[in-house]
């Protein structure tokens, strides 16, 4: 069903007047992510469609309910792509959901994160006001960067209506290479290569095999292959897609799935659980039943953090606890956008 922005605005205004909590949803493909919440469903998947796309400007503007599939198809027609390779986690995944969850795919350490490509947002805040921030140009420092603030905020600051993103050309050539090595060697190798001018676009170690993706011009990719060696993986693209969508056998385990974000060269740990090192070592998946405090302590001790990504108890905090001064700033920012606390309350943290 088509949903106009004024319809969404009316729903938010009514909810604001009554203090009714809303649970914003697009394709509902990421319902597993974040804390479990209750609220009156606000389905924005009907607010869909690409508003403008000019390939030579490298910018696309689309309504938040537009399916990622539709956006990626439109970009592919001009041989372009979303450089941050957002996971869909289901057919109905929308642009708004991708931005709200802020999750980026395998290319993230080399090409950039979802938040890096956000240029502008049109949204409705918790008081039902229709607001526009940023724009459709690459460089824009007028006003605070509210657009990027929406990335990963889990819908707690505003209902997104439209998003403008920077896009990039698809690489002319991609090649996936495999190396059978141990964990310590894999971590050191990924760090060494990342410090060299190589056309890397992904690197993941699954406990036995290090897979590396090279992207760029054919001559550049071939020259890099000559330099680093490795065994060519047939149909490498489907491996990275399966990794991005959590369709590898590793992710079929029913135990809680933790995501650790740590400095890339952090040594491997012996913590109980099965590990998968993506993002050149900077994003580490851990399937484990060990207590949350232990795994969080481990991430904090090296300057990172841990998220209970999937499974486990979704009524406790699933995102890494914030320091007291950050809790204060988060609380005040939430009040600044949503003083009645009606937008996805508790989805990110219990008190937001």
């Amino acid at each position, binding site marked *: 069903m088509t949903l106009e922005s004024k319809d969404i605005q009316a729903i938010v205004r009514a909810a604001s007047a009554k203090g009714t909590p809303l649970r914003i949803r697009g394709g509902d493909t990421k319902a597993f992510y974040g804390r479990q919440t209750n609220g009156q469903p606000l389905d924005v998947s009907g607010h869909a469609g690409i508003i403008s796309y000019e390939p030579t400007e490298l910018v696309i503007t689309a309504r938040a309910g537009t399916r990622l599939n539709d956006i990626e198809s439109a970009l592919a027609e001009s041989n372009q792509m979303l450089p941050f390779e957002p996971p869909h986690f289901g057919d109905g995944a929308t642009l708004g959901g991708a931005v709200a969850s802020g999750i980026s795919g395998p290319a993230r350490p080399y090409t950039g994160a979802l938040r*890096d490509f956000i240029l502008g947002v049109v949204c409705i805040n918790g008081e039902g006001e229709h607001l526009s921030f940023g724009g459709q140009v690459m460089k824009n420092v007028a006003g605070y960067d509210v657009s990027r603030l929406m990335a990963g*905020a889990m819908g707690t600051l505003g209902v997104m209506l439209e998003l403008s993103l920077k896009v990039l050309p698809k690489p002319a050539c991609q090649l996936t290479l495999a190396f059978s090595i141990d964990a310590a060697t894999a971590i050191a190798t990924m760090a060494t290569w990342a410090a060299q001018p190589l056309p890397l676009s992904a690197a993941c170690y699954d406990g036995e095999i290090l897979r590396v993706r090279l992207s760029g011009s054919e001559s550049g990719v071939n020259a890099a292959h000559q330099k680093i060696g490795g065994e060519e993986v047939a149909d490498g693209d489907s491996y990275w897609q399966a990794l991005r969508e959590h369709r590898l056998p590793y992710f079929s385990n029913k135990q809680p799935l933790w995501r650790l974000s740590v400095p890339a060269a952090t040594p491997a740990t012996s913590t109980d659980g099965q590990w998968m090192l993506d993002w050149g070592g900077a994003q580490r998946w851990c399937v484990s039943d060990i207590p949350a405090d232990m795994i969080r302590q481990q991430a904090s001790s090296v300057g990172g953090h841990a998220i209970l990504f999937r499974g486990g108890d979704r009524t406790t905090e699933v995102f890494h606890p914030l320091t007291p001064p950050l809790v204060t700033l988060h609380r*005040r920012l939430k009040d*600044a956008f949503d003083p009645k606390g009606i937008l996805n309350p508790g989805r990110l943290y219990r008190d937001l």
Partner: protein
Amino acid sequence: MTDPNPQPAKIGAAEKQSLIDSLQAFLPTASVLHREEELRPYECDALSAYRQLPLIAVLPETVKQVQRILRLCSARKVPVVARGAGTGLSGGALPLANGVLLSLAKFNRILDLDPVNRVARVQPGVRNLAISQAAAPHALYYAPDPSSQIACSIGGNVAENSGGVHCLKYGLTVHNILKLEVVTIDGGLVTIGADALDSPGYDLLALMTGSEGMLGVIVEVTVKLLPQPESARVILAAFDDIEKAGDAVACIIGAGIIPAGLEMMDKAAICATEDFVHANYPTDAEAMLLCEVDGTSAEVTEQIARVEDVLNSCGATEIRRSNNEQERAVFWSGRKAAFPAMGRISPDYYCMDGTIPRRRLGEVLARIEQLSQEYGLRIANVFHAGDGNLHPLILYDANKPGELERTEELGGKICQLCVEVGGTITGEHGVGVEKIDQMCIQFDKSELTQFHAVKHAFDPDGLLNPGKAVPTLHRCAEFGAMHVHGGKLPHADLPRF
């Protein structure tokens, strides 16, 4: 929502002395400046048309001292303006007559450089270029390269979200930092971001970047370092028509090439810089493009050939390519000297900073030319063509009565034009005091109110750099009235030299 920019009360001599005494209780006497001759160097940043002596200037050396300064100012409701190297172009570091100017010049140390994780932890007063110089032995560098990179400091880069000629490919400051240590107005110390690629909660790192000293004082920055490209080459292309040059930019990007830098200059800019640096620029051309590609040697060779094909098919009248580092430096020398070159042909110049959708370039340049004739002021255009960031340079003479005012009005018209075509009033220089009225064109009442609410979340009493970046609704109402009635000076409440 309360007014985030309350005008703090005037401060009398006794109160000033009491503040000096309190500051000297924990700062060395020489770090608390209060006499006119000591304060003079702080009266402006690189937008020297606006000048104001601060009440007091302080030069702390430790984070604890910064915390105590902010705690003291917070308790006494004294506004604070943070300052880095003072190279800002929008008056973001313009002092307040009743405020403390907080210089971070003594925070000039690189604290740690980790070549394995490719990060550097630095103090805010460290110069942009010094980071790349320190990383060079590891074949790494810090990517954003604003034209003032020899002098500008990283703290200021974060406050303004600075770019540079390479940001089409490598991004702005916001894309190249990981973590900040920030002192809040109540004197608290908060870590924003992390040593990892992301951190939990809201993206406060993005919010702080480009916030123009309105939300907190940055006392430490962790930046990402990138591997130096193996090779870089630049192509210079001349065009007999500026629209053809604009189309060529679109064709290069449409061909799937993301150059490391893609710059355009119009005839006025070409001629002025050629007279200055003798880079052998084509002075008979209407427009000139500089297109740099970098990467592995194999990639660069392939891409240079493709760029050349595209330029030829777009009607370039002349194409030259750099064959070595020396030639590359010569090609860039004119572009990099464009601003000082204007200083040679005009007593003063005023640099604008709008960003526009690239496809509107021809139309925008034609309208800028019309405005130039209407106001009787020459304009030269240099353009970060790859990302649509236009720098019209308005040439004027401040000694001619009324010329600065006409220049400002013309600048305002150009800002308005950029917003009309779907762009923004500032791409990389910031709003500061300079473009504060034009913020009223770009944002409506509810958006400005939301900005004020964000400010309020960090700084409830409105003490950090008040009066900059985000106008009060009252100010916008007056600005609107000015447009209706005309003839009144813009920024009537701001000091003039």
